[in-house]
C-alpha cells in the first residue's frame, strides 16, 4: 500500500491514536526511568500501580461521587503515598542486595494486586465516562476534546518532570545521588529519604497515568499488564534511566505504532519490539542512554 493512497483523515486518526498511546508510554516509562535511575530497581509493579490509579479514580466516582478532576488531583497523591509506604516497609530492606530481589518483590506485588482486583471485579472493565465532551472539527478530521487534553497534559507533565530533575536543586540531588549516594550523604543530604520520595514520585506518575487512561481504555484489572510490556521496551529503547529518552521514545514509538497500523496492520503489535531489537543490536545503551548503568 502506498502512503499517498491513504485518506488524510485516516492518517490523522492513526497519528492521534499513536500520540494517545505514546502519552501513556511516556508517562509510565518516565516513572520507571526515574525509579531505575536512583534506586536501580526495575519496578515491575508499575503497570499494577497504573491500574490501581485508574481503579481509585473509578471508585472515587462510584462511591464518593468525586469526578475526574478531583481524581486527577487526589489519585497521584494517594498512589505516591502508597509507593512511599512500599519503599519504606519493603524495598528498603532489599537495599544493597542483588537488584533481582527488588525485581522479584515488585513482580510479586504486581501479581498480587492484579489477582486481587480480578477476584473482586472480574476481568471485564468498568466504564468511566469522559469528562470532556465534544471535540475539535478540522477540515479532514475530528479530534475528540478529551484525547487532545490527554496528549497536552501528558506532554506538560513529562516536560515538567524533566525540568524538575534536570534543572532544579532537588533534581541535582537526585542526579548526584545516582552517581555517588555515599558522597551525597556526607554533604548532610538524607539520601534514604530521597529514595523514598523518588519511588513515591514514580508511583505517583503511574497513578496519574491510570486516571488519565480511565476514560479512554476500560478500567480493568489487566490494563496495566497489557501496557507494561510495551513500556519496558520503550524504556530500553530510550535508554535505561534516561528521562528525556523515556519521553522521546514514548511519544515516538506511539506514533511509529500508529503509522504501522496504517501501512502494515499485521505488524502494529510487534513494531515496538522490532525497534527494540534493532536498538539493542546497534546501540545497546539505548537511544539516549549514557551506557554507565
Amino acid at each position, binding site marked *: 500500500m502506498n502512503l499517498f493512497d491513504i485518506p488524510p483523515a485516516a492518517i490523522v486518526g492513526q497519528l492521534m491514536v499513536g500520540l494517545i498511546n505514546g502519552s501513556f508510554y511516556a508517562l509510565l516509562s518516565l516513572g520507571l526511568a526515574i525509579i531505575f535511575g536512583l534506586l536501580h530497581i526495575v519496578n515491575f509493579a508499575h503497570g499494577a500501580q497504573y491500574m490501581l490509579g485508574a481503579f481509585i479514580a473509578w471508585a472515587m466516582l462510584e462511591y464518593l461521587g468525586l469526578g475526574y478532576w478531583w481524581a486527577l488531583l487526589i489519585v497521584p497523591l494517594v498512589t505516591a503515598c502508597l509507593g512511599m509506604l512500599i519503599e519504606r516497609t519493603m524495598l528498603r530492606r532489599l537495599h544493597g542486595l542483588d537488584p533481582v530481589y527488588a525485581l522479584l518483590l515488585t513482580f510479586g506485588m504486581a501479581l498480587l494486586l492484579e489477582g486481587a482486583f480480578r477476584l473482586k471485579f472480574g476481568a471485564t472493565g468498568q466504564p468511566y465516562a469522559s469528562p470532556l465532551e465534544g471535540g475539535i472539527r478540522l477540515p479532514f478530521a475530528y479530534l475528540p476534546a478529551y484525547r487532545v487534553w490527554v496528549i497536552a497534559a501528558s506532554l506538560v507533565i513529562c516536560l515538567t518532570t524533566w525540568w524538575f530533575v534536570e534543572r532544579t*536543586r532537588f533534581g*541535582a*540531588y537526585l*542526579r*548526584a545521588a*545516582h*552517581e*555517588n549516594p*555515599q*558522597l*551525597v*550523604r*556526607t*554533604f*548532610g*543530604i*538524607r*539520601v534514604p529519604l530521597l529514595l523514598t520520595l523518588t519511588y513515591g514520585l514514580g508511583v505517583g506518575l503511574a497513578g496519574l497515568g491510570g486516571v488519565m487512561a480511565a476514560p479512554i481504555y476500560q478500567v480493568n484489572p489487566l490494563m496495566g499488564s497489557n501496557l507494561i510490556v510495551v513500556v519496558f521496551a520503550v524504556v530500553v529503547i530510550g535508554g535505561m534511566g534516561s528521562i528525556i529518552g523515556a519521553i522521546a521514545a514514548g511519544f515516538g514509538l506511539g506514533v511509529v505504532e500508529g503509522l504501522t497500523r496504517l501501512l502494515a496492520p499485521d505488524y502494529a503489535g510487534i513494531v515496538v519490539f522490532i525497534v527494540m531489537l534493532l536498538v539493542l543490536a546497534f546501540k545497546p545503551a539505548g537511544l539516549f542512554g549514557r551506557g554507565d548503568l
Partner: protein
Amino acid sequence: MSEPLLRVQDLAAWYGETQSLQRIDLEVHTGEVVCLLGRNGAGKTTTLRAIMGLLARCQGRITIGGQSALGLVPEKVARLGVAYCPEERGIFASLSVEENLLLPPVLAPGGLSVDEIYELFPNLLSRRASGGSKLSGGEQQMLAIARILRTGAKLLLLDEPTEGLAPVIVEAIGRTITQLQARGFTILMVEQNFRFASRLADRFYVIDEGCVVESGDRHVLANDTARIESLLGV
C-alpha cells in the same frame, strides 16, 4: 589544653571480615592542620571514612565537638560540622561546575559565600557552566575542596588533595590550605607527599597496619626526617 574538636580513641574498623584499623588514637584541635602519613594501605583513608560515618563496622570512640559520632550515619556527621573531600574527588559528571559547587546544602552559618569561593578559586569561575567531567585533575580537586567550604563545616577531612597533580597545582593547593587555616578552618588531611605535608601540618600522625605508630609536631617532622621517612617506606 582545651577539649579537642575531634578526638578518636581506640578506633577499630572492618571492611567485611577484614580488619583494616586496629587501634587509632588521635586528636585535632580547633584551627589546626593535622596530617595523617603512612604507606599505601596503612589505614589513612579508612580512618577518614570511619570518622565520616562511611564504614558499616567500627568500634571505639569518636567525639566531634564533644558529641559522640561513632555509629552515626554520614548525614548526621555532616551536621556536626564535618565535611569530607574524598581521594577520588567525587565530582559529579552529570552536574555542571556550578551545580557541583552549590550541591552541598548550607548546614550551619559561617561558611564562605559563593563570591568568596570564586575569589579563592578564580579558575572555577571561568568554568562554572562546564560539565563536571570536563575539568582537569587540578580543577576537579579545587572544586572538590571549594564545594565543602560553603556549608558552614568547621572541620575539613581532605583525602590526598595533591595526588596525581602537577607541582604548580600542588603549590596552589598548599596556598589554599594555608588560607583556609587562616580563615579558621580546622583540617585533618591524608597525604602521601611528605614534603608537602611537612610544610603545612602543625602536627602529624604516622599510621601503619591500622595503628598510630608515631606522632608529633612539625619540628619533629623537620628534625627527624630520616626516621619518619623510614616509617613511610620512602
